[in-house]
């Protein structure tokens, strides 16, 4: 049983690390600010969840488990808020996204 949990935990951590790498690669590969933000979105949702899940399996029952859960909760709430603030301020700063239809003008 402990071997199984260690295996599951390692699998989660490995997959999370792969997703973080993919997110980083996306930030380098994608053409403009807004598309890059989507790539960064992968690291702040699935990658964080998998890494924290792996650490939770590793830590076992106890206070650290709940602290990890709190970290996950905070990232899940602050992540989209920060992304939205970033996108909105970029838009208001006059940065036009790629593929923006001109007939879809704001206001």
């Amino acid at each position, binding site marked *: 049983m402990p071997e199984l949990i260690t295996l599951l935990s390692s699998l989660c951590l490995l997959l999370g690390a792969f*997703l973080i790498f993919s997110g980083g690669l996306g930030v380098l590969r994608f053409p403009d600010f807004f*598309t890059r*933000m989507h790539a960064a*979105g992968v690291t702040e949702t699935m990658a964080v969840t998998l890494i924290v899940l792996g650490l939770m399996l590793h830590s076992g029952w106890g*206070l650290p488990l709940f602290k990890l859960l709190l970290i996950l909760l905070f990232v899940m709430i602050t992540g989209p808020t920060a992304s*939205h603030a970033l996108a*909105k301020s970029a838009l208001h700063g006059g940065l036009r996204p*790629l593929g923006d239809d001109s007939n879809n003008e704001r206001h």
Partner: protein
Amino acid sequence: MKHTVSVFLLLASFWLINSGYYKPLLLSFGLVSAIFVVYLTHRMDVVDHESHPLHLFNLKLPSYYLWLVGQLIVSNIDVVKRVWSGKGSISPCTAWLPLSQTSDIGRVIYANSITLTPGTVAMDLEDDRVYVHALSREGLDDLRAGEMDRRVSNLER
């Protein structure tokens, strides 16, 4: 009143989880600081149905979260695929989408859910519409189909 109780319970459990020491002296420090923070939030007038949407906590919420986690996994796989297959696979686009929520908190939940799923970001929010940037046309069409909008509106009832 129930909002005040909820703030206090939240702060108390937060303190307990973060401290890990259960000696009387430290517990009383925790109690005093929790009560002090409740007093501060009352002075700031931020304890209400918006900062503590207790009315949203019902049986529908867990099922929405479960559905959202499923969406998260699907859209994460989609974005990672597009990252590895390169620039040719993306078709960035923007659009104003209608929303059917009636309360501010409902709109915020919808916009936050859009942003939380990789591949779509809510960039602006008005009373009856939300401005969305999507990594691909398919992602925008999925949102336009209105499944998420319907489910969030269902939470409000």
